[in-house]
């Protein structure tokens, strides 16, 4: 099991991902705090940044597609402007000022 992460580590991680991909982080600081906490809990629980909005199996190979940023992030952004958790937003969606909402699950059902 890798060394534990702090919430500060996780904040650096999501900022790094967003910068690298040219995405925006949700401007809702309360939601960000919940997701940072959730990602940190999941890292320290499973050993990887499993999506905080999905129930992980705990087996890395089975959860590979939902390790943040998940495999469905980009298609979800293309269709809805943000990822499943509302963490990573496209720049055009961010500019609208809209509040992200839950979106349909794109992950194949047999992986639930």
């Amino acid at each position, binding site marked *: 099991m890798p060394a534990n992460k702090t919430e500060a580590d996780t904040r650096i991680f999501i900022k790094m991902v967003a910068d690298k991909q040219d995405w925006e982080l949700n401007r809702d600081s309360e939601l960000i705090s919940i997701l940072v906490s959730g990602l940190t809990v999941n890292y320290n629980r499973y050993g990887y940044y499993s999506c905080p909005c999905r129930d992980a199996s705990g087996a890395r190979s089975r959860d590979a597609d939902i390790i943040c940023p998940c495999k469905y992030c980009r298609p979800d952004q293309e269709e809805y402007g943000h990822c499943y958790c*509302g963490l990573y937003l496209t720049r055009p969606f961010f500019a609208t000022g809209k509040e992200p*909402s*839950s979106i349909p699950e794109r992950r194949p059902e047999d992986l639930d």
Partner: protein
Amino acid sequence: MAFWIQRCMVIENLQFIHEEGDRAPFEVTLYALSTCGFCRKSIMFLKENRIKFRYVHVDLLDFETKEKVKRYLTEKFNTRLGFPFAVLDDREFLRGFNREEWEKKFSV
């Protein structure tokens, strides 16, 4: 039938957190993940609107119980599970948190 009753017992034996409120348009049971932002938003929505409800963090259950709960919900409602998952009057559900949809459903 015994099988189904056994499943129902799994739900009723869960340690729900009960939130009091002065509005009870439905009997609301919320299944959430402790790590999920939209789940927290849904809990805050119900509290802010003073709606009585009970909830449980599914990810904090032991594995066997969690699997039983997930199976019970998917079979009862013949649907895919997603969080938050709010059961209303034990007969309909809201999956995910969409503020407009919830405002309409709870008439707030």
